[in-house]
């Protein structure tokens, strides 16, 4: 099975390389910049990159589609993040293929182009198993697959022309206050026992004392109580 991944950082490139390994066959990745392309070449046999500016879904999806036209994948694997979901929706509608989000495991069936997909449904309270036929676009939940180490020999790197964005973009990077959950060695996590946003100060204080980061579980994430939009929900927890 030929897999084309989309990754906008090293961690996702390594996680989706593991997911592609689980399916077997050739794997390539599309990344939105030259610097990441050189890193990704340690993980994939082929790397496509475009010199894209700040995230704009239509142009990112168009560049990814261009890479797909060249690589001809059976399956597109994307991060189950806000950006990944947008690209998956645009790409699958352009290609006329099915998509699945919140996927926690994938396995290819021997002898045909079917993939067994397990995904979270009903806000993460249930899991459903589907049989999907390739081609398809799949958004994988963060942490479902471990980060894979480098493979032998660097992969081939191809540049894809950057399409014009469909909208103008004004980007303000997130101001980083203290340690971030995705990087910290210690994460203090608040759950439903926390009754008010004021009580979160206790959690933040403990995280500071331990030199770590703080975050929240899904019910609190749904109330946007977490430090980062998305943390605690599928794709981030």
């Amino acid at each position, binding site marked *: 099975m030929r897999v084309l991944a989309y990754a906008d950082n090293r961690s996702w490139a390594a996680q989706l390389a593991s997911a592609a390994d689980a399916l077997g066959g050739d794997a390539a990745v599309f990344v939105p910049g030259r610097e990441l392309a050189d890193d990704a070449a340690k993980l994939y046999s082929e790397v496509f990159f475009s010199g894209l500016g700040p995230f704009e879904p239509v142009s990112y999806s168009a560049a990814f589609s261009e890479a797909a036209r060249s690589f001809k994948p059976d399956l597109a694997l994307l991060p189950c993040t*806000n950006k990944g979901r947008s690209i998956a*929706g645009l790409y699958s509608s352009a290609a006329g293929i099915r998509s*699945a*989000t919140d996927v926690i495991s994938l396995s290819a069936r021997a002898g045909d182009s079917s993939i067994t997909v397990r995904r979270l449904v*009903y806000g993460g309270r249930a899991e*459903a198993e589907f049989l999907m036929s390739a081609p398809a676009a799949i958004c994988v939940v963060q942490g479902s697959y471990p980060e894979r180490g480098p493979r032998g020999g660097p992969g081939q790197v191809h540049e894809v022309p950057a399409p014009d964005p469909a909208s103008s973009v004004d980007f303000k990077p997130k101001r980083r206050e203290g340690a971030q959950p995705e990087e910290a060695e210690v994460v203090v996590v608040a759950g439903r026992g926390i009754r008010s946003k004021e009580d979160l100060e206790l959690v933040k204080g403990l995280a500071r004392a331990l030199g770590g980061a703080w975050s929240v579980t899904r019910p609190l994430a749904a109330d946007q109580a977490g430090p980062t939009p998305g943390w605690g929900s599928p794709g981030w927890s």
Partner: protein
Amino acid sequence: MKILVAVKPTFDIGQLKFEKDGTPLLDACPVSLGEADRCALEEAMRIKERLGATVAAATVGSSEAHYKAIRDSYAMGADEGYLVKADDPWKLDALSVASAIARVAAATGPYDLVLTGSGAGDTHASVIGPMIAGILGIPLIAGVDRLEVRGPGVVAGTCKLEDGSYTYEARTPAVVTVTSEANAPRIPNLRAILRSKGMQIREMSAEELGVDLRRLEPLSVRKYEIKRKRIIYKAEDQKGAAEASAELLAALRSEGVLS
């Protein structure tokens, strides 16, 4: 200005219960118009009140909850309501739903804006808006917390994404998906609710729209549980702690938690 709002009824997952074998009891779970879809409708109403607009609501599915979703949209102030008939709508695949909404837009438009919730509270796939934009070939602003019409034919939306805040400005027509953080949706008064019951819902068939409504049948659906292993690595002294830590790290690696 003409605005189409794609809406869908969603299960109230907070009240979802399961059989002992883990099967979800969907028939006993309340269903209502999704929160983010309500926020999308509210944005449409605010534009209508400020600048003047005709607002249409559209949904795909023939369940009573789908008819109620359109009546609720009328109660919030929508002027037109379209329902694409489909049995067993909960199993429709996302691309079919997006294709049907895009065909409704083409058949009843042209629209300046197509709005929808950024994700349904139950499935939360968040791909319907992007797919509609892809099918119609128009700009997409996804996950908007703040929406603004900046002038004739220009719309702007601010979104909080993983790495920061993005403000997009696009020419209309455009698709905008709205989060439940964007506003506090209005609660219709009794008069509006009563009026909504008498308003006509225009039913459309998949054949009439020329769309193939495909289903994605799950092999199984079960309660999702992360089972605790309840393994304790004990250590009496510093040497024991080092050994226990090594065992813990080996166990985490073998489970794939660490690489």
